[in-house]
C-alpha cells in the first residue's frame, strides 16, 4: 500500500505557524514579485478568492474581507518543507519516502500490516502536525493514482475524514472512484477530460476504470493510458522513485521589481541568475554544454517559453560552450555576451532568465588527473564559494559582474520574517 502525504494549503500553513491569530482567518500568499495568488487558506477559498488570479484583481475582495496577505517567503517554506519530509523519513524510514514536491511526498507503507494502516495514517498526520506545526492530509491506497484520489477526497470533507482516507477494500475504492470526476484524476489533463466526456460519455473515475486496455491504448495516449487504467484498478505501475532526480535543464528566471532600461542592470541580473543556476548545477554534480538567455520587454506577454520563442514574443538566444562546465566564471562570460546580442536600446525590460542545458556529469569534480592544475583550483574555488554562501546566506561571495546594488531586485513588500533561517529574524517572545 502507498500513501501520499500532502500539506494543506502549505504556504498559508507556514505563515500561520508563527502567527496564531490567523488560525481561523482568511490568508493568501502571493507569487514572486507579488503578482498572483499562489496559496489560499480554506477561509480565503470560501470567500471566492481565485487560485493563480492576479493580486490586483482580487484586491477589493481581499481588503473588504480583511484577508491577511503575504509575499512568498521561500526561505521559511523551504525549511518547513524539509522538516515535514524529515519527520516522514524518521517515522517510516528513509528508503520509503519519495519527496514529490515541496509539499507532497509518497510514502511506501508495505512494511506495515494492512489492518494497521488507518492507525498509521492517522499517526503520520498527527506526528507531522505536532512536530512541525504543518497540517497534512493522508491518502492511502494500493497505487499512487488511487492514493492521490483518496487524498483529494479526504480534503473535501475535512470534518468527516479528519484529513485521512484509507482505501483498503474494493468497496471503498469503488465508492471513491464514483465520487471522482475524470478531470480530477492525477494525470488526466483538462483537454483529455473534455474529450472523455464529449466523445465517450465517461464522467467519473469508475467509468474510466472499466474501459478496456485496448481502448486505453488507442485513445488515451498508448502505454501511459494503459498504466493509468491499471493504477485505477489497484495494480501498481508507478513505483517509488529515487529522490534525487538529475535535471536535464536548469533555469533561473525572475521578474524585475520595476522595469529596467539600462543594459548594465540587465547584465548584473543575468550574471546573478547565472550564479544561482550554476550553483544548482554543481549541487547535482553536473556540467552544462549550452547556455540560453532571454529577456522580456514591458509590452510583451507574461509567459515565457523557451520552445515557442516566436509565439510568446520572448527574446531568447543561446550559445554552445566549448567544453561542458559548471564554473560560474565560465558561464557568466557567455551569458553576459548574450545580453549584448538581445539588448535593444530604448526598451523597458521586465523579466529575464538563464537556462543551462545539455547537462552531463561533471568530470572535474574528483580532481581529475588529466586536467590542468588551474582547473582543479577552480573546482576548489567553486566548492568554497558554495560552502560559504550556503552557511552565511545571501551570496556573501559573488562575482563582481553580479553588481553590488541590485536596483532590479524582486518586489516582496509583504514578506514575513525568515523565522527559521536567520538569527536576526527569530520570533521575539514576551
Amino acid at each position, binding site marked *: 500500500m502507498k500513501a501520499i502525504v500532502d500539506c494543506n494549503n502549505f504556504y498559508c500553513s507556514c505563515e500561520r505557524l508563527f502567527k496564531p491569530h490567523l488560525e481561523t482567518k482568511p490568508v493568501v500568499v502571493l507569487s514572486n514579485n507579488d503578482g498572483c495568488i499562489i496559496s489560499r487558506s480554506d477561509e480565503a477559498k470560501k470567500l471566492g478568492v481565485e487560485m493563480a488570479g492576479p493580486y490586483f484583481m482580487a484586491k477589493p475582495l481581499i481588503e473588504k474581507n480583511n484577508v491577511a496577505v503575504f509575499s512568498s517567503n521561500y526561505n521559511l517554506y523551504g525549511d518547513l518543507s524539509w522538516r515535514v519530509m524529515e519527520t516522514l523519513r524518521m517515522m517510516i524510514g528513509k528508503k520509503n519516502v519519495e519527496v514529490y514536491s515541496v509539499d507532497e511526498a509518497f510514502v511506501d507503507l508495505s512494511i506495515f500490516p494492512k489492518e494497521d494502516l488507518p492507525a498509521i495514517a492517522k499517526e503520520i498526520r498527527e506526528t507531522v502536525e*505536532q512536530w512541525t506545526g504543518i497540517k497534512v492530509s493522508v491518502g492511502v491506497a494500493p497505487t499512487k493514482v488511487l492514493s492521490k484520489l483518496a487524498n483529494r477526497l479526504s480534503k473535501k470533507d475535512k470534518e468527516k475524514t479528519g484529513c485521512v482516507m484509507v482505501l483498503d477494500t474494493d468497496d471503498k475504492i469503488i465508492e471513491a472512484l464514483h465520487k471522482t470526476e475524470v478531470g480530477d484524476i492525477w494525470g488526466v489533463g483538462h483537454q483529455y477530460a473534455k474529450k472523455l466526456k464529449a466523445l465517450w460519455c465517461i464522467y467519473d473515475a469508475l467509468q474510466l476504470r472499466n474501459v478496456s486496455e485496448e481502448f486505453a491504448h488507442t485513445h488515451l495516449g498508448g502505454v501511459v493510458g494503459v498504466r493509468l487504467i491499471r493504477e485505477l484498478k489497484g495494480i501498481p505501475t508507478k513505483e517509488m522513485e529515487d529522490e534525487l532526480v538529475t535535471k536535464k535543464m536548469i533555469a533561473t528566471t525572475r521578474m524585475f521589481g520595476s522595469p529596467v532600461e539600462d543594459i548594465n542592470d540587465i547584465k548584473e541580473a543575468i550574471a546573478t541568475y547565472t550564479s544561482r543556476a550554476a550553483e544548482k548545477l554543481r549541487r547535482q554534480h553536473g556540467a552544462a554544454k549550452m547556455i540560453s538567455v532571454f529577456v522580456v520587454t514591458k509590452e510583451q506577454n507574461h509567459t515565457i517559453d523557451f520552445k515557442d520563442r516566436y509565439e510568446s514574443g520572448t527574446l531568447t538566444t543561446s550559445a554552445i560552450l566549448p567544453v561542458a562546465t559548471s564554473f560560474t566564471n565560465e558561464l557568466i562570460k557567455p551569458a553576459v555576451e548574450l545580453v549584448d546580442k538581445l539588448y535593444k536600446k530604448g526598451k523597458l525590460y521586465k523579466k529575464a532568465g538563464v537556462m543551462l542545458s545539455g547537462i552531463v556529469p561533471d568530470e572535474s569534480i574528483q580532481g581529475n588527473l588529466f586536467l590542468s592544475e588551474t582547473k582543479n583550483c577552480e573546482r576548489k574555488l567553486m566548492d568554497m564559494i558554495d560552502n560559504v554562501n550556503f552557511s552565511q546566506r545571501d*551570496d556573501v561571495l559573488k562575482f563582481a559582474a553580479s553588481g553590488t546594488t541590485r536596483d532590479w531586485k524582486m518586489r516582496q513588500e509583504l514578506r514575513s520574517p525568515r523565522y527559521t533561517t536567520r538569527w536576526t529574524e527569530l520570533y521575539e517572545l514576551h
Partner: protein
Amino acid sequence: MEEEFYGAAYKGSKQFTQQQVKTANATGFGAAADDYMERGVDLNEQLIINKPATFFFRMSGEAMAGAGIYPNDVLIVDRSIKATNGKVIVAAIDGELLVRRLQTSFNRLTLVAENKNFKPLEIGEFSQYSAWGVVTCVIHILDTSLQAYQSNRNHNMQRTAI
C-alpha cells in the same frame, strides 16, 4: 535499521566520515596523537534532540527572569515534547505566542510568569489556547566580546543581503 523507525536521533551537521576528521598532519614525529583522533564535541548534538521539531526563539522582556531567561537570550523549543505541569513552554494564547511556565491542577490551566510584576494568566473556557512547544534550553551570552562578534556577523550579513 532499528533506528530508522520512530527514532528521534539527532541528524544534524555532524555527519562526516572518519576520513574527514582532521588529524595533526604532522610531517615529523607528531603522528602518535593521530591514533587517538576523534570527532570534536558538537553543541547541536548535545542540545537538539529532534531536529525537524526544534525551533529557535529570541526572548524579549523580563517575564521569565526568575527562570533564568533574560532579554535577548535564545530559546531552544522542541515541539515534539508534551507540555505538562511545571514545564516552561511556548503557548499560543488568544492569537499570541508567549513563554511561560505551565501549571495544571484539576483541569485548570495557568500560565505563570517568573516575575512578580506579571500576573498569572488563567486559561479560561473561552480562550484560544494551545501548547506550541516546550523550551528545552536557554542560550545566554555572558561576555560582551561574543555579543560584539554576533552583532558584527549579523550586520555583515544584512549588508550583503539581496
